[in-house]
């Protein structure tokens, strides 16, 4: 609370006249944050859990949350894309026929906003070239043939004393781990943590909400790798300069909340806060609102309200990889869905083809729809040759009927207003939908804030007319991007 009070006490800028420096902007921001937080604090008096306005309560299907993480065997071939993160693709530094050992760098970072790629298994480079990727396009990948007889421990590692590093060294070391946002955002971790000091980040928000149905890998990570997570949080606080951290966890994971509460340091710099179980609690702006009562101004980043959001999975891997000096060669992900016989959380080497993964968990032949990520925001893949990448938080196999069903009849908008009631950005999806039917895409953006839609899917989820609202909004946004208004 201390940091917030400090913000509130900052003088307001009224009457001062604008000075062309960073200070007024910051003060304005602080005033904005302060005003919200007063309201928020009043509201907090009446509830014990953080939350946000609107949102939905889908069926959560979190059955895998009680199953311990298990390790899967290696596929015979691993397909490792060079572009698994946002930013420039990595540069391949191996040749066909070359032997690589697990953890070795096989592609180097191309500049600051880029990440290296590490060999996920000991084996030999069989091919370098275009392979199908999750996007549906072909992407540059390194194909490894795995030595099945090999023990496959990580041999390439440079343990180091993280506490002795200065901030620059720390950020460089984070880049070397090849770590990006593992919740699915895939933004390079070192870039995200490298916030300029003048932005004045006061809180590191640790996202343990895991609001997407079916996914439980973050849950298991919090329970099973609590120490890694706490270490990672401390590294991230040092790298970003944030004096405190808050871990937000939806209250359907009481064991995770308990495990973390037991591991909190005595100095009070890290705290844990239960959140209402509600989708999309884990989106950056809803999470910051739920935990801090601050509203990120439209089009700005969390830093605008002094916060920085990182996913628990990312930080747990940070806490594990950084001191060991290893690269990211595998990740924990949830494999679930009605068409999977043994759903659970698995440690899967990067580059494992979905076909192999689904065979291992016994995906039934009724699987019609394979989703990467969660069911609300994830995307379906067209081919089972697509590999698991750093950003794959879940692989869900649905039989057709379990998801959208037998193509329910689409009715015209009946004006029920449900979509308006659930939109976490307070948009008017009904109006946007009507306009998109008339192809008035420009009007949608100009009058009804189309650009604020982050495609969370709440509106489509509740619409009783089964109008594919989100899909229409994507079309409209794509159109507006191609035809910018000048």
């Amino acid at each position, binding site marked *: 609370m201390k940091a917030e009070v400090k913000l509130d006490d900052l003088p307001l800028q009224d009457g001062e006249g604008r000075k062309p420096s960073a200070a007024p902007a910051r003060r304005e921001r602080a005033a904005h944050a302060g005003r919200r937080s007063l309201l928020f604090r009043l509201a907090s008096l009446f509830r014990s859990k953080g939350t946000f306005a609107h949102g*939905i309560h*889908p*069926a959560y299907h979190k059955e895998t949350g009680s199953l311990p993480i298990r390790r899967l065997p290696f596929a015979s071939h691993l397909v490792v894309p060079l572009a698994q993160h946002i930013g420039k693709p990595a540069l391949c530094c191996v040749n066909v026929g070359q032997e690589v050992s697990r953890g070795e760098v096989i592609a180097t970072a191309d500049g600051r906003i880029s990440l290296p790629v590490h060999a996920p298994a000991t084996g030999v480079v069989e091919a370098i070239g275009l392979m199908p990727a999750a996007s549906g396009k072909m992407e540059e990948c390194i194909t490894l043939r795995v030595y099945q007889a090999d023990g496959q421990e990580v041999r390439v590692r440079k343990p180091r004393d993280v506490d002795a590093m200065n901030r620059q060294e720390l950020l460089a070391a984070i880049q070397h781990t090849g770590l990006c946002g593992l919740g699915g955002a895939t933004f390079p971790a070192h870039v995200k943590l490298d916030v300029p000091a003048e932005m004045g980040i006061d809180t590191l928000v640790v996202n343990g909400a895991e609001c997407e149905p079916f996914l439980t890998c973050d849950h298991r990570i919090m329970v099973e790798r609590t120490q890694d997570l706490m270490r990672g949080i401390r590294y991230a606080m040092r790298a970003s300069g944030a004096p405190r951290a808050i871990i937000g966890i939806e209250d359907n994971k009481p064991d995770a909340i308990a495990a973390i509460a037991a591991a909190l340091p005595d100095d009070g710099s890290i705290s844990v806060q239960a959140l209402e179980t509600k989708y999309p609690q884990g989106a950056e*702006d809803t999470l910051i609102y739920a935990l801090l009562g601050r*509203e*990120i*101004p*439209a*089009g*700005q980043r969390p830093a605008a309200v002094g916060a920085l959001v990182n996913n628990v999975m990312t930080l747990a891997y940070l806490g594990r990889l950084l001191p060991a000096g290893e690269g990211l060669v595998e990740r924990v992900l949830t494999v679930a869905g009605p068409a999977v016989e043994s759903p659970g959380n698995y440690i899967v080497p990067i580059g494992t083809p979905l076909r192999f993964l689904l065979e291992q968990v016994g995906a039934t032949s009724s*699987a*019609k*729809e*394979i*989703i990467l990520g969660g*069911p*609300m*925001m*994830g*995307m*379906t*893949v*067209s081919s*089972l040759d697509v590999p698991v990448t750093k950003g794959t938080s879940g692989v*869900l196999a*649905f039989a*057709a009927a379990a*998801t*959208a069903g037998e193509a*329910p009849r689409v*009715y*015209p*908008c*009946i*004006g*029920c*207003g*449900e*979509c*308006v*009631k659930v939109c976490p*950005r*307070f*948009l*008017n999806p009904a*109006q946007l939908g009507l306009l998109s039917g008339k192809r008035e895409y420009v009007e949608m953006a100009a009058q*009804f*804030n189309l650009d*604020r839609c982050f*495609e969370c*899917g709440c509106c*489509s*989820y*509740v*619409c*009783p*007319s*089964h109008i*594919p609202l*989100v899909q229409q909004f994507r079309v409209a946004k794509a159109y507006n991007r191609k035809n910018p208004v000048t």
Partner: protein
Amino acid sequence: MSMELRTSPHLVSDRSVERIMKHVVLSLLPVCAFSVWQYGLSALALLLAVTATCLATERLFNRAADQPSTLGDWSATITGVLLALTLPPAFPLWMGAVAGFVAIAIGKVLFGGLGCNVFNPALIGRAFVQASFPAAITTWVPAFSAQRFTEFAPTTFTVPLMIPPDVADWVKQQAVDAFTGATPLARWKFENVTASAWDFLSGAVTASAGETSAILILAGGIYLAARKFMDWRITVAVLGSAALTAWLFQMVDPSHYPSPTFVLLSGGLMLGAVFMATDMATSPVTPLGVWIYGAVIGVVTVMIRYFGGLTEGVMYAILFANAMAPLIDKYTQPRVFGARQQGKKQ
């Protein structure tokens, strides 16, 4: 394995248009049953005739437009039942059929069908017959007459396009005490006599079928609201604003103006507030908009009753608010999350 490509979200809730509409029909059934118990065969025949006409009209236009049947969405059924409940129980069936046809043809299809209509179709039908058959729509028969389950009111089977016969003699034969032939609202307006709450709740007043069962209507509304098939905010706004307006008038002149209870229970206010004002297509969607919309209906209803030429104002109040709904929506767009509050449009 054949793969299906879809875009997110991959989950949908189990809400559907059919489901919502079916539940609305369901919650109207007790009201219908009560009206049949009160008025007997005539009310039953009217309900069936009006609803059947609505369905037939909808189907006819489906055929004409070469579209698949839209009867399965149940919205025409709702229109039919609601319309029948707003008519006098002994209303000639052929006039009821006209009302049903107009409700669907002009109130709904003309605008483009489900969801596109600006006005509540049932009220369009009712407004049409009110203007066309001013005598028939104010001809009332007594409730709980002895022969209600054995004979029809003489007006029910009027030959189409003919003037219905006079019911006065027939009413006398029914030997019901204290039947005045005027609705409580009319009696208040012209004779300054108000009915008691008990009269309304027991159904012992003269009225159209759906105006005498406040408790059942409210129960249906509570059921729908609890299952989230209805926007309770509109109902609360309508009833609240009507009660408040009535209360203010009573404070000013208690000898002339009736109590809020009378205002709430008389006429079609209850039915209108629960089942008609909440019609999804014709009400606003914004959080502030629904309150404004409901308040407009409540206030205008009372104003028409007190100062208009008509005894009942719910119908026109709702139609008036329906017309305003798009405008209300336009000016009450919610503040977008993250937008600065100082009135600055971004």
